[in-house]
């Protein structure tokens, strides 16, 4: 056996190495912020911040270039709203069913299905939007009314994509509600609907709201599905059946395009990326806040 001095030295070394690994996560955050700040600094030297944030025309690759980011934000917003309309009600409904109605056998079918849905890569959802959802929409609403690329089909697949996340987070929140208060309500003669809507959902509200915010933040950052399905036309039309462009889709377009590194055209992706990072980080912080501040604590 090694001497105690050797042992102590080894212990100190190991502890130092482990701490170093943990600090890498801080370094990652610092690196993200540094890269986004440094590279978009170059962009904002050429384009005033107010023109960028409040401009309504986004055409950085065409002369005369214009750098108003609002059309991209609008495109992203349409996807998020559409996805929310699908995923939030279905996700919450499923979670209520899982928590209040489903027996263990049904849970054993539904939970793995949700896990598989959550594990499908986003590029696959993009493929499905293009080859399954868009043709179906064009069939139903008419080929003339629906573009080959359209916001609706992107929103639908993004909705399906965030559905498992909403369901499982709401399910966690609902399961955390103690059975005792449910039994109390049942004993007073409430139906299951009344127990769900007046007891369970209000008690789990902080978790439910947090899950909504997290899922929508995920929808904002979603890239491949909307790049493939929703098109590359920055627009403020709010017409879900026509082509739009999201912030993420624009970033992919430039990354795959031939804008030379270091030009204003190329640096736009850092400005857009910085905005995306700030929005999603803000939403994630809000979700954590909601969970901590408004959690109902049961003894």
């Amino acid at each position, binding site marked *: 056996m090694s001497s105690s001095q050797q042992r102590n030295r080894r212990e100190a070394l190991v502890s130092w190495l*482990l701490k170093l690994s943990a600090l890498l996560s801080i370094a990652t955050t610092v690196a993200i912020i540094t890269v986004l700040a440094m590279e978009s600094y170059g962009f904002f030297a050429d384009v005033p911040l107010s023109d960028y944030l409040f401009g309504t025309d986004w055409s950085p690759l065409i002369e005369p270039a214009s750098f108003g980011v609002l059309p991209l934000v609008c495109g992203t917003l349409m996807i998020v709203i559409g996805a929310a309309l699908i995923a939030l009600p279905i996700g919450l409904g499923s979670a209520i069913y899982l928590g209040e109605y489903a027996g263990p056998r049904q849970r054993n079918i539904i939970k793995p299905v949700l*896990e598989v849905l959550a594990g499908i890569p986003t590029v696959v959802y993009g493929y499905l939007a293009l080859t399954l959802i868009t043709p179906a929409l064009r069939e139903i609403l008419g080929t003339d009314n629906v573009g080959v690329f359209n916001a609706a089909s992107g929103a639908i697949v993004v909705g399906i994509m965030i559905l498992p996340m909403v369901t499982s987070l709401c399910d966690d929140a609902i399961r955390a509600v103690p059975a005792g208060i449910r039994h109390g309500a049942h004993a007073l003669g409430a139906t299951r609907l009344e127990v769900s809507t007046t007891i369970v959902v209000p008690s789990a509200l902080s978790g439910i709201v947090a899950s909504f915010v997290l899922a929508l933040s995920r929808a904002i950052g979603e890239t491949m599905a909307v790049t493939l399905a929703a098109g590359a036309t920055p627009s403020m039309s709010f017409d879900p059946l026509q082509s739009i462009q999201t912030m993420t889709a624009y970033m992919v377009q430039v990354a795959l395009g031939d804008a030379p*590194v270091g030009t204003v055209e190329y640096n736009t992706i850092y400005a857009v990326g910085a905005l995306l990072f700030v929005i999603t980080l803000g939403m994630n912080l809000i979700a954590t806040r909601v969970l901590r501040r408004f959690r109902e604590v049961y003894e």
Partner: protein
Amino acid sequence: MTTSDLMFDSNLGKRQRRAARFRRLVAGATWSGVVLLAVMLFHIVKEGIGWVDWQFLTSFPSIDAEKAGIKAALAGTIWVIGLTACISIPVGVASAIYLEEYAKPSRLNRLIEVNISNLAGVPSIVYGMLGATIFVRWLHLGQSVLAGALTLSLLILPVIIIASREAIRAVPSSLRQAAFALGATRWQTVSGHVLPAATPGILTGVILALSRSMGETAPLVMMGALTYVAYTPTGITDEFTALPIIIYNWSDRPQQVFHELAAGGIVVLLAVLLAMNAIAVFIRHRSQRNSP
């Protein structure tokens, strides 16, 4: 309608009918997820299965759809994910050990924890920009396997850390106290007792994280990963393409035949992901059976 209105509706029949309608509604919402999955998988398999054969797996990409295959993409994915595993597992598990076994409650450690959970919520495309800027441009790694693996490692590190911490936390503290009582040092306790006990849980989390990184497209696209690569990588500095990238490229083409090729690629990708998940489930199941 306020709570009291709902509770004091004297018409019991109406209330029960409403409850029955609600039950059908939430049941319908739930099973719609199952139906959606079935429809989507059926569509992919119907379109793609005809293309998946030996020739598809062993050919390089081609503008001639009949001759196109995923050899380079499959090899690229194996190289990148393999290297990602080599980088992210040691660092991730080490971070988890530090946070669970070593860290005392301090401001710095609290900051690390909050930071990790926030990193888990950063969109993958932002990691792509980080990789494109730091690894590809500043460190001159180019569009190499190494640059791709480093980027994906940063992306899945928070997932691995969070899963590993849960596995380590689940190890009963009596195990640690027994080791300490016998005079073991902290590292002897961790490496000899805690880690072996936590391995199944860590492994499950790691496999799920790696399968997630295998499907990630946006980070690699942001790095400018290539589409037409007619060779397989022979080292970590070689350029590469990957399965999700070739699927994206084929899906993005207007011709129907390339959409079918994309479906073929998806069938292969999903098969690999399914196999990895099955392994994870198997490990979880076995460890649950063995532990008391």
